[in-house]
C-alpha cells in the first residue's frame, strides 16, 4: 500500500497468515490451552446452568450503571490476572538469566524467554496494568458509586456508559488476541519512539498496542464526559458543591483530566498510525519528523494519566478512613481543593519524564519545581488522613488495612518521587530500577486503594459481606510481597540496574533479584486469599447478609439506600441536608429508608447496541492491525449504520409506575409478594449468577424477597430497620 512492509500481504487476509500464529512457542501453547480451557469451562458452565439468557438480559445488554460498573471491574480483574502473570514471567526471567553462565531453556540463550518475547511481556504488563486493569477497576467503581453518592438514578448518559465499557473491552480483547495471533508490541507501554516506527517494529505488535490503547482511550474520554455531566447536572436536591462526597470530588477531578488528557493520546496515536500506515513523517528521525514531539505528546497525556488513576484511589481512601475511624473526614475543603490542584498541576509536569533529553538546566529546573509542587496537595491529603485517624475510634477491618497500606506507600512513593523530581538526581536513576520501584509504589497504592474500595462497597452493591479474615491475610501477604519486590528494586536502582533487561549482565544484582522473586511468591499467596475471600463471601452469602449500612459507621449518601441497591437506586430521590448525609440522618435519627410517597420512575431500556458497537470496533481494530482493508471498510460502515439506526429509536426508556415502585420498595402497604408485579427491568444487583432464578419474570420476586430480607434483617446498629 503506502509504505514498505516486510513480509507478505494479500487483499483478503492482509498480513495475516497461518504462520503468524506462534504455535511453535511452548509458552504460548501453554497460555493458549489455559485460556481455551478456562473459556470452555466458563461457556460450559453458562450453558449447563442455562444462564445465557440471564447473562444477556441482566448483564450484557443492561444499561444499569451498577451492572456496567461490575462488568468494568470484572474485566479489570481478568486483565489484572493477565498482567500479574506477565509480572511473574518478568521477575522469573530476570532471576534466571543472570550472568553469562546462566542456563537457557526453551530456545532462549539465558533464562527461558528470548529477547523479543520478553519485551512483549513487559510491554503488555505495563499496558495491561495501567490501561486495562487499574483504569477499568477505578472507572467501574466510579460508575457505580458516583450516581449513588450524589443521589441520582443513573449516570447522565447510561447508553454512553455501556458504549465506553465495550470500547474498553474491545481494546482488552485486542490485547488478548495479540497473545495468539501475531505478537504484541516490544516497545514498552509508552511506545518508545522511534522504536515503534515501521523499520524497527516491522511486525504487527505495535499496531495491536496502538489500536488497543486507542480504543480504550476513546472509551476513557467518553466515560469522563459522562461522569462530569452526571456530577454537574444530576445531584440530588439540596446537594450543593459543599455537600458533594469526597470520592465524587476526586471522580470529578479525575474526569477533568480524562476529558482533557486522553484526546492528546488519541492525537499522538493517530499521528503514529499515519506514520506506520501512510508513511508520513510526524515522528520519524528523517524527513523533518520530530521524534521527541511524540514523547512530549505521550507524556502530556501520560503524566495526567497517572493522576487520572491516583485521584479516585485518594477518594476511596478518603471514604474508608473516616468510616473506620468513626468520625468525619478532616479538612474536607482542603481535600477537595487538593484533588483539583493535583488535576491542575498534572498538566505542568510532563517534561520530568525526559529530563535526560538534553533540555537546558532552566527548563529542567522549572519542570522539577513544578513536579515537587504536586507533592504539596498530595502531602495535604496525607496530613488530612493522619488527622482523620487522630482522636478516632479505629477499627481495622480489611478495607481499613488496605487503606493504611496505601497510605504508607504514598509516603514512600512520594519520597522517591520528590527525589526523582530533582533533575540532577534523575540523571543518575532515570530509567533505572529505582524509577520502576517509584512508580510501582504509586501503582500499588492505587491497587491497595482499589482493593479497599472493592471490599468496602461490595456489601453495598451485592448485599452480603466478603470474608474479612481472608481479606486481612491477603493484605499482609500483599504488603510483604510489595516490600520484598519493590524494596529490592529500590536497592537495585542504586546498584545501577536499568529497566527492561531480559538478561542481567552483572551477577552482583542477583541477591535483590532473588528477594524480588520471593516477593512474587507472597503476591501469589495474597492472590489466593483474595480469591478465597470472594469464595467464602459467596458461600456464606445467605448467612451473612449485609444491611443497608453494613459497616455501621458509614457516612455518605450511598449508604441510605438498600443493600443490594435496587435498579432505580432510590425509590424517591433523597433530599440532602449535610455533607455526610447518611451520618447526618443517623445523628438526627431520621433512619427510615422507606419514603412516604412515590413517583413514576423513568428508566432506560436494555439495548444490545453498545455491545454490537464494541464488537464492530474490535473488528475495525483487528482489520487495521492486519491491514485487511475490506474488513476496516465494512466495520466502519457498520458502526455508522448502527449509530444512525439507533438514533431513530425514540422508545429507549421505560416507566415504572409509582404503584409498582411502592410495591417493590415495600412501602404503602404493598408488601413484596404482591402477585403479578412483573417488571421487565427490576433486578437489582444481587442475583449472583448461580442463584435460583431463571426467567425474567421471576426476577421481580427475587427483588422483592431480597428487599424484604434487607428490611427484616436489622443492620449492625439496628438502624436499617423500618419502623
Amino acid at each position, binding site marked *: 500500500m*503506502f509504505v514498505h512492509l516486510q513480509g507478505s500481504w494479500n487483499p483478503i487476509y492482509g498480513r495475516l497468515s497461518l504462520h503468524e500464529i506462534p504455535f511453535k512457542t511452548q509458552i504460548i501453547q501453554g497460555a493458549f490451552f489455559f485460556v481455551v480451557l478456562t473459556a470452555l469451562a466458563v461457556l460450559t458452565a453458562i450453558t449447563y446452568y442455562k444462564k445465557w439468557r440471564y447473562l444477556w438480559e441482566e448483564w450484557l445488554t443492561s444499561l444499569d450503571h451498577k451492572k456496567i460498573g461490575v462488568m468494568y471491574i470484572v474485566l479489570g480483574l481478568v486483565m489484572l490476572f493477565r498482567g500479574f502473570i506477565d509480572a511473574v514471567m518478568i521477575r522469573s526471567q530476570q532471576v534466571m538469566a543472570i550472568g553469562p553462565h546462566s542456563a537457557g531453556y526453551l530456545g532462549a540463550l539465558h533464562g527461558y524467554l528470548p529477547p523479543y518475547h520478553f519485551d512483549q511481556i513487559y510491554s503488555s504488563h505495563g499496558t495491561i496494568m495501567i490501561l486495562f486493569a487499574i483504569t477499568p477497576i477505578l472507572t467501574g467503581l466510579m460508575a457505580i458509586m458516583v450516581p449513588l453518592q450524589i443521589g*441520582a438514578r443513573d449516570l*447522565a*448518559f447510561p447508553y454512553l456508559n455501556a458504549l465506553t465499557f465495550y470500547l474498553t473491552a474491545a481494546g482488552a480483547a485486542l490485547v488478548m488476541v495479540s497473545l495468539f495471533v501475531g505478537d504484541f508490541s516490544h516497545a514498552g507501554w509508552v511506545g518508545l519512539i522511534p522504536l515503534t516506527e515501521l523499520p524497527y517494529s516491522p511486525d504487527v505488535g505495535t499496531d495491536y498496542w496502538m489500536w488497543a490503547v486507542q480504543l480504550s482511550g476513546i472509551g476513557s474520554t*467518553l466515560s*469522563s*464526559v*459522562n461522569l*462530569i*455531566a452526571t456530577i*454537574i*447536572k*444530576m445531584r*440530588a*436536591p*439540596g446537594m450543593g458543591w459543599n455537600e458533594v462526597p469526597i470520592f465524587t470530588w476526586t471522580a470529578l477531578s479525575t474526569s477533568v483530566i480524562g*476529558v*482533557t*488528557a*486522553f*484526546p*492528546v493520546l*488519541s*492525537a*499522538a496515536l*493517530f*499521528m503514529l498510525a*499515519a506514520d506506520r500506515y*501512510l*508513511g*508520513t*513523517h*510526524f515522528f*520519524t528521525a*528523517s*524527513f*523533518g*519528523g*520530530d521524534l521527541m*514531539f511524540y514523547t512530549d*505528546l505521550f507524556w*502530556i497525556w501520560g503524566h495526567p494519566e497517572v493522576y487520572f488513576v491516583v485521584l479516585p484511589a485518594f477518594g476511596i481512601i478518603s471514604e474508608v478512613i473516616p468510616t473506620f475511624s468513626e468520625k468525619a473526614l478532616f479538612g474536607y475543603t482542603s481535600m477537595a481543593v487538593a484533588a483539583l490542584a493535583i488535576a491542575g498541576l498534572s498538566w505542568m509536569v510532563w517534561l520530568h519524564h525526559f529530563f535526560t533529553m538534553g533540555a537546558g538546566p532552566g527548563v529542567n529546573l522549572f519542570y522539577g519545581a513544578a513536579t515537587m509542587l504536586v507533592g504539596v496537595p498530595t502531602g495535604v491529603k496525607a496530613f488530612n488522613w493522619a488527622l482523620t485517624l487522630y482522636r478516632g475510634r479505629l477499627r481495622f477491618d480489611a478495607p481499613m488495612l488496605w487503606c493504611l497500606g496505601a497510605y504508607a506507600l504514598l509516603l514512600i512513593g512520594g519520597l522517591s518521587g520528590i527525589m526523582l523530581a530533582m533533575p540532577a538526581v534523575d540523571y543518575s536513576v532515570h530509567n533505572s530500577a529505582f524509577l520502576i520501584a517509584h512508580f510501582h509504589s504509586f501503582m500499588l497504592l492505587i491497587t491497595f486503594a482499589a482493593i479497599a474500595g472493592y471490599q468496602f462497597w461490595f456489601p453495598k452493591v451485592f448485599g452480603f459481606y466478603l470474608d474479612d479474615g481472608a481479606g486481612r491475610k491477603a493484605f499482609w501477604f500483599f504488603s510483604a510481597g510489595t516490600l520484598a519486590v519493590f524494596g529490592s528494586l529500590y536497592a537495585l536502582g542504586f546498584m545501577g540496574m536499568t529497566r527492561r533487561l531480559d538478561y542481567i549482565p552483572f551477577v552482583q544484582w542477583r541477591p535483590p533479584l532473588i528477594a524480588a522473586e520471593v516477593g512474587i511468591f507472597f503476591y501469589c499467596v495474597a492472590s489466593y486469599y483474595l480469591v478465597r475471600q470472594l469464595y467464602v463471601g459467596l458461600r456464606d452469602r445467605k448467612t451473612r447478609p449485609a444491611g443497608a449500612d453494613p459497616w455501621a459507621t458509614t457516612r455518605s449518601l450511598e449508604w441510605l439506600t438498600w443493600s443490594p441497591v435496587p435498579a432505580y437506586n432510590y425509590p*424517591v*430521590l*433523597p*433530599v440532602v*441536608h449535610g455533607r455526610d448525609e447518611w451520618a*447526618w440522618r443517623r*445523628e*438526627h435519627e*431520621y433512619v*427510615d429508608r422507606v*419514603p*412516604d*410517597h412515590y413517583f413514576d420512575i423513568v428508566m432506560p431500556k436494555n439495548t444490545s447496541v453498545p455491545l454490537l458497537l464494541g464488537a464492530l470496533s474490535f473488528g475495525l481494530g483487528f482489520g487495521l492491525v492486519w491491514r485487511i482493508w475490506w474488513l476496516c471498510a465494512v466495520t466502519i460502515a457498520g458502526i*455508522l449504520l448502527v449509530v*444512525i439506526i439507533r*438514533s*431513530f429509536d*425514540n422508545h429507549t426508556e421505560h416507566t415504572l409506575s409509582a404503584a409498582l415502585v411502592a410495591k417493590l420498595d415495600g412501602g404503602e402497604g404493598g408488601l413484596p409478594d404482591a402477585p403479578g408485579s412483573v417488571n421487565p427491568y427490576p433486578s437489582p444487583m444481587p442475583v449472583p449468577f448461580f442463584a435460583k432464578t431463571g426467567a425474567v419474570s421471576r426476577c421481580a420476586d427475587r427483588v422483592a424477597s431480597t428487599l424484604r430480607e434487607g428490611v427484616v434483617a436489622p443492620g449492625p446498629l439496628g438502624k436499617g430497620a423500618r419502623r
Partner: protein
Amino acid sequence: MSGQEAIREQGLWDRKDVHHDKIGTHTLGFWLYMLSDSMVYAALFGASVVLGHRMNAAGGPMGATVLHPLSAYWETLLLLASGLAYGLALQGLKRGRKALVLAWMTVAFLLGAGFAALSVHTLLALIARGITPERSGYLSADLALIVYHALHIGLGLVWFLVMMVQVAVFGFHPNVVYRLLNLKLFWFFQSFVWVLVFSFTYLRGVLI
C-alpha cells in the same frame, strides 16, 4: 440549621418529582465532547507549529508554494454561510415550523457539501502535484490538520442528512431537538476551527 428545621423546610425525600433537564444535560455533554475534540485539534495545531520550521520541510515545499489562500477563501465563505443557514434553520425550530427548518437545513447542507467538494479538490490537486504527506514532516502536519477537519465536515454532513430525515419523520421530538442543538454546536465549532486551520496552514508563509 438544626435537624428539625431542615426537615420542616425540605423534607427527607424529594416532594417535587424532580426531573433532570434532558436537553440541558445532553448539551453539557456535547460541550464536554467538544472540549476533548479541541484537545485533539490542539495537538494537531501543536504538530503544525513544532513541525513548521524550514528544517521540517526537509528540502520540500512549504508555505505559500503548497497551499493557495484564495481557494480556501471561497471555502471559508461557503462554510460560514452554511453556519448562517443552519442558524436560520434553528429560528424555524424556535417557531416550531418544520418546513422552514428543512428548507434552511437543505441550504446549509448544500453549502457545506460545496465546502467539502472544494476541500477534496484542493487535496487531490496537491496529490496530483506530488505534494503528499509522505514528503516531509511539515507537509504531514499541515495536511493532517486539513484532513482531520475535513473528516469532521464529512461526518457533519451525514449528521445533517440524518437530522433532516428525523425532523421530517418525528417532528420536534425532544430527542430530535437536542440533536439539532448539538448539531448547531458541532457545526459552529467546525467553522471556528476552520478559521484557525485557515490561518495556520493557508495563510502561513503568505500573511503571517
